[in-house]
């Protein structure tokens, strides 16, 4: 029996407020022990890591940063459900020592749930510098669990945290005396009345602590708990009456009275266990000075824009150097494989399918890494919250949160990491709106398409046309944000309630870890979605193998090669090869699909070639130009492609195609990112349907306007 307990893996959940240093502690604990065998290397969510401490396997779970366990936001819900239903062996409650007044609120709820807990007084050094001294031993009995002073950035106290977890989980350790948060007499009387009823309904099922917790939750009007107790009609009725009577007598809802009671408890506790020096520390004065500049009425916004510009510029200019190296690496590999492998279908698949698709996407890795370096820097220092504060007024006009600016700007570079950046937005509604509108931003992969069409049809005004597309993309994004916030996402109002954390110097380790984690996520995507997508497109393009050509190209080419070399021979050879490739593509599955889908685009007058280009663009927008090059059997760079295309459409159709290509669908990588950030395929489906519908209608309107006007 004892043996069994010994080998059982210990589950330790980390909880705490946002900005409490919870994630830093998690990363520090997880990374110092990277060598443990079953360490899952590339998991993004849920954040779980198995580590080893003193010969014991511990599963660390990083719960989302929350201020309360009321289950009002998905994050709070996830946190509460985990602690309540999964019953981790130990909960490590991470507190910001310099901000105990507020961070202990979550603690009072943990106390009431009665879970085995350890309290980490994190950023203890910062608190000391602020002139705060804490009587740690006194807190142990008040909070009902070990209290450990920690400094996440240096790793101080983290070993002791794990030691304490092992000790608490050991059945031989006597349990800490239970603590309870006391409320005023009216609330206590109500709790007691509800609890009596609960014990009657669930005889002998619950401990005193559990029934008290349930009574409090019911009185707080917790929807989920009310539903769960729904079968007990009398109980629900009694709770309803209690709540109504309380509100009537106190002009305050039960839940707010409970909240005030909890802060009363915290106030009393801190009066005893904490002293704060009256002197304002130098650090705080410095922070105020920095804020005076960065949040300045006139300078704040220009500084923010300047920083955004630096981030944007560095991501795409500095990123270009490693991108070139990766690109030549991919080319070298492709050349090497081309030399070694015998001509076969496998070789073709490897070179033109896998390497072309995966290699074409992996070149964005440097951009992703640099982008996330900046995002980590801004969020770790506390600047992101300031940026959101500065911009909220403007973004609010469009139904967005102040923090939506970053993803929108980054969207001009690449949509997929931009959508990942929506993670910094706390409100779920704002996050979904932002991830739904970000794909409209004209990313760098769409630029070649715009340049090709602008050059082919509007050569005199090519620059203005491309700029117009950039404008159209931001107008569509903001317009759609207004629309979504007034329609589909209206039902979830979220006030802008945001903490401005004190400025903190980020640890290099934390920034690097953040970068690595996101780079890993990106590589994982390349290895899955992009890999499969590229193979599928390759197959569709290459099959069926046996095609009934309209003429025997091979014979003609063989015949030609027998002739003496001449310019004329070269030209004919090139023409024949190009025609053969075009016919092959036309009769491939991809070509057939293109022709089958083409009727959808008939009202705009797009042909099957345009359709195929549009379809391949779904995998990655870069593919649109590449497809045209293959379809028109022209080299991508050549002027020939422009002149070949320019004959196929009238200017209105070309403009319509540009608009369509700008808006029609998020690429596969972006779809993956939306799925992850919005949390469900439902939103992906909505995004696809909305953008397709919008792009199609706009293109149709443009073509018809063109017919009338031209």
């Amino acid at each position, binding site marked *: 029996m004892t043996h069994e307990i010994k080998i059982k893996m210990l589950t330790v959940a980390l909880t705490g407020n946002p900005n409490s240093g919870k994630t830093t502690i998690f990363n520090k604990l997880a990374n110092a022990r990277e060598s443990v065998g079953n360490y899952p290397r590339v998991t993004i969510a849920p954040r779980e890591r198995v580590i080893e401490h003193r010969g014991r396997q511990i599963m660390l779970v990083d719960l989302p940063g929350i*201020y309360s366990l009321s289950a009002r936001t998905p994050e709070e819900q996830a946190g509460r459900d985990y602690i309540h239903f999964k019953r981790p062996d130990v909960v490590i409650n991470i507190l910001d020592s310099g901000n105990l007044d507020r961070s202990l609120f979550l603690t009072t709820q943990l106390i009431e749930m009665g879970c085995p807990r350890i309290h980490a007084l994190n950023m203890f050094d910062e608190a000391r510098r602020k002139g705060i001294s804490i009587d740690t031993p006194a807190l142990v009995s008040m909070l009902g669990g070990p209290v450990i002073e920690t400094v996440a950035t240096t790793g101080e106290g983290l070993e002791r945290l794990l030691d304490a977890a092992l000790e608490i989980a050991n059945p031989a350790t006597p349990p800490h005396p239970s603590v309870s948060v006391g409320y005023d007499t009216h609330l206590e009387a109500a709790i007691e009345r509800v609890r009596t009823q609960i014990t009657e309904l669930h005889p002998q099922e619950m401990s005193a602590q559990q029934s008290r917790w349930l009574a409090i939750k019911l009185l707080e009007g917790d929807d989920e708990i009310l539903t769960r107790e729904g079968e007990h009609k009398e109980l629900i009725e009694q709770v309803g009456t209690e709540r109504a009577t309380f509100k009537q007598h106190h002009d305050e809802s039960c839940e707010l009275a409970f909240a005030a009671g909890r*802060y009363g408890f915290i106030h009393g506790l801190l009066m005893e266990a904490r002293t704060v020096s009256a002197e304002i520390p130098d650090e705080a004065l410095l922070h105020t000075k920095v804020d005076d500049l960065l949040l300045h009425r006139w300078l704040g916004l220009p500084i923010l824009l300047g920083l955004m510009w630096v981030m944007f510029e560095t991501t795409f200019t500095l990123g270009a150097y490693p991108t070139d190296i990766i690109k030549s690496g991919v080319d070298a590999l492709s050349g090497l494989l081309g030399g070694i492998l015998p001509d076969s279908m496998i070789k073709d698949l490897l070179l033109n399918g896998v390497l072309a698709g995966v290699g074409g996407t992996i070149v964005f890795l440097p951009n992703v890494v640099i982008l996330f370096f900046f995002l980590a820097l801004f969020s770790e220092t506390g600047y992101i919250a300031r940026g959101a504060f*500065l911009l909220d007024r403007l973004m609010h006009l469009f139904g967005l949160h102040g923090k939506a600016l970053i993803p929108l700007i980054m969207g001009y570079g690449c949509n997929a990491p931009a959508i990942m950046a929506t993670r910094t937005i706390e409100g779920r509604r704002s996050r979904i709106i932002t991830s739904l509108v970000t794909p409209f931003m004209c990313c760098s992969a769409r630029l070649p398409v715009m340049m090709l069409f602008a050059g082919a049809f509007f050569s005199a005004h090519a620059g203005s046309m491309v700029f117009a597309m950039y404008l159209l993309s931001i107008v569509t994004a903001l317009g759609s944000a207004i629309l979504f916030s007034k329609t589909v996402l209206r039902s979830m109002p979220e006030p802008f*309630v945001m903490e401005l954390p*004190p400025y903190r110097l980020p640890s290099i380790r934390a920034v690097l870890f953040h970068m690595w984690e996101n780079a890993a996520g990106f590589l994982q995507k390349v290895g899955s979605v992009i890999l499969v997508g590229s193979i599928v497109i390759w197959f569709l393009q290459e099959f069926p193998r046996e095609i009934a050509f309209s003429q025997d190209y091979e014979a003609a080419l063989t015949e030609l090669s027998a002739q003496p070399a001449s310019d004329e021979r070269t030209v004919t050879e090139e023409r024949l090869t190009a025609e053969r490739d075009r016919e092959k593509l036309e009769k491939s599955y991809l070509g057939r699909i293109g022709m089958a889908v083409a009727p959808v685009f008939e009202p705009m007058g797009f042909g099957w070639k345009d359709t195929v280009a549009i379809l391949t663009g779904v995998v990655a927008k870069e593919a649109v130009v590449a497809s045209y090059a293959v379809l028109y059997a022209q080299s991508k760079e050549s002027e020939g492609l422009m002149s070949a295309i320019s004959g196929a459409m009238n200017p209105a159709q070309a403009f319509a195609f540009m608009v369509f290509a700008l808006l029609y669908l998020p690429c596969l990588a972006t779809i993956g990112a939306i799925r992850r950030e919005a949390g469900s395929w439902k939103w992906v489906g909505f995004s696809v349907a909305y953008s397709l519908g919008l792009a199609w209608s706009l293109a149709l309107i443009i073509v018809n306007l063109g017919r009338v006007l031209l």
Partner: protein
Amino acid sequence: MQNSQMEALTLADLGPGQSGCVVKVADDALGHNLAAMGLVRGATVSLNRTAPMGNPRIYAIKGYQLSLRNEDARKVLLRLS
């Protein structure tokens, strides 16, 4: 009369450097959100900063900085302290 005058004061009316004591939040859903952030009956709040376009604003509460939009702050009733 004095009472009604006091009732009318909201968080959005605080001037720079002025502080007040929370009496009540006039919207239950918002009240909940704010309660988790320490803004409950009896808490002391002061105005720290205003954004470039006058909205949102930053308030000091329980030793940290909290940013709120004016339309939300208007629902927090205060008593000057």
